């Protein structure tokens, strides 16, 4: 039986402050009040510590905390007691939610990626991957350069959704660094509805080629008694398939809180663990939603890529469920943040129920992935984020020692509107 969330007390308090700043006051920080934003974040952490947030002293006397516990502790379900910073957190995320134009626009995505940990490969090139827009409707011009080791590039291979750099291991003297700039098109994605002439209540009957999206094992998706029971409880009731999926989505919003989860807290039944913990990040929330949809007979898949919100630029995963030929409907568990877990909220409750805003789609599981190449994730890990000037930094660290494995620095420009059909941000074809 899964216990409560673990506490990995390995992150300096200053880094946790930066996470709180990004989550709650990034607009203020970017608007010129970085010191004020940081001060509010520090006071928030002090309050949480005074209320028992776990911490310990490191060898040098520094205060060490769990990377996720503070931000998770800030979040409260609608109507529940909350920390005084909670309204700021919600305001920040809600401002993100409405910041992107629905119509297709051109964006320029800039990524500097540093690989600090990778497998040795004597005699063979090291392989490093960067994401690119996967969908035809999004693809645009990409510029890629290997910054370190200079002159170490052996080969470059571009394919939909990724660029692969093969590097001479003899040239490597430290972290491997590459930079990517890609201009692409993104717009809102919505349920396209049934094709003309088809019944309004699509059956979602699987077609040839849907097999990968019906499997009962993929990533953390595995047979789960708890999940099967939940699916059974949702299966009854009148209504068309879209109404059924809306009920699934709303139930998830009610059952789970959006937050970070250490993968070590998941047992042999990962999704059952998620349901017991009551917390899910975007990957876990999407996995639960996809697993439920598949259990109910619908092909369903996990998409990954990048949110384009100006203050929340970063990696994200969400789901699509197939309701008929060519009809993939998007659902994003991340909207929990906007509604504070209340699916009945008239504005935010169903914000990403059947629609998503503009995103860079880089992966469609299980077969279209960027891949880790020579730099697989550490066996146990955690993530941090912080503001670095204009850019947002996302880092991946190994547990238990916190060693840096990978650093991404992200930036984004909205270039202007693009003519053409709506729908490149989410729902659509393969």
């Amino acid at each position, binding site marked *: 039986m899964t216990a409560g969330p673990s506490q990995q007390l390995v992150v300096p308090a200053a880094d946790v402050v930066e996470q709180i700043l990004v989550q709650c006051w990034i607009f203020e920080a970017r608007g010129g009040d970085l010191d004020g934003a940081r001060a509010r974040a520090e006071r928030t952490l002090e309050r949480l510590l005074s209320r028992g947030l776990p911490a310990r002293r490191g060898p040098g006397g520094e205060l060490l905390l769990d990377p996720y516990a503070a931000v998770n502790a800030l979040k409260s379900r609608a109507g529940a007691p909350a920390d005084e910073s909670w309204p700021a957190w919600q305001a920040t995320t809600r401002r993100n939610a409405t910041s992107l134009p629905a119509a297709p626009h051109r964006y320029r995505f800039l990524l500097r990626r540093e690989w600090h940990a990778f497998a040795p490969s004597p005699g063979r090139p090291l392989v490093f991957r960067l994401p690119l827009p996967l969908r035809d409707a999004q693809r645009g011009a990409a510029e890629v350069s290997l910054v370190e080791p200079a002159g170490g590039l052996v080969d470059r291979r571009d394919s939909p959704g990724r660029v692969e750099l093969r590097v001479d291991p003899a040239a490597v003297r430290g972290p491997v660094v590459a930079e990517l700039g890609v201009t692409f098109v993104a717009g809102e994605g919505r349920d396209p509805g049934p094709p003309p002439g088809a019944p309004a209540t699509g059956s979602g009957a699987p077609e040839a080629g849907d097999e990968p999206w019906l499997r009962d*094992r993929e990533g953390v998706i595995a047979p789960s008694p708890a999940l099967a029971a939940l699916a059974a409880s949702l299966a009854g009731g009148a209504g068309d398939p879209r109404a059924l999926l809306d009920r699934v989505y709303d139930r998830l919003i009610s059952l789970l809180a959006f937050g970070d989860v250490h993968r070590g807290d998941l047992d042999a039944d990962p999704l059952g663990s998620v349901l017991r913990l009551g917390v899910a990040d975007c990957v876990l929330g999407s996995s639960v939603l996809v697993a439920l949809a598949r259990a109910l007979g619908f092909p369903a898949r996990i998409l990954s890529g990048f949110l384009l919100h100006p203050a929340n630029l970063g990696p994200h995963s969400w789901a699509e469920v197939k309701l008929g030929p060519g009809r993939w409907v998007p659902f994003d568990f991340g909207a929990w943040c906007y509604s504070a877990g209340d699916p009945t909220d008239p504005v935010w409750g169903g914000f990403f129920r059947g629609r998503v805003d503009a995103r860079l789609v880089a992966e469609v599981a299980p077969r279209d992935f960027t891949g880790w190449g020579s730099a697989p994730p550490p066996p146990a890990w955690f993530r941090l984020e912080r503001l670095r000037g204009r850019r947002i930094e996302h880092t991946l660290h190994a547990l238990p020692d916190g060693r840096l494995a990978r650093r991404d620095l992200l930036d984004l420009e909205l270039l202007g509107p693009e003519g053409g059909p709506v729908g490149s941000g989410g729902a659509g074809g393969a």
Partner: protein
Amino acid sequence: MTRSLVIPADLGEGVEVRVLLWYKAEGERIGEGDAILEFETDKAIVVVTARQGGVLRRCFAPAGEWLGAGQVAAWVSDGADDPLPGDRGAPAEALLAAFETT
């Protein structure tokens, strides 16, 4: 004798791998220590290196195609004219090979 090059079953139930590159072509001789195949999962790229020699007789998935964990990827025979199994799933001794994550 003909042996099977098998994608390791311990990658996990239901796991698929994508073939990235065949280092040898059908009919080509493989020496001990030669790279035969490169495949990937979403977490890693694996190079398969022969631990015994032979002739590559059949490749069951070209580059870009998928194989499941436990599936036969290729047949390798001691000689070019050795008889082949009746079907891909027929029991055959496994080719000794090293699977190195790059």
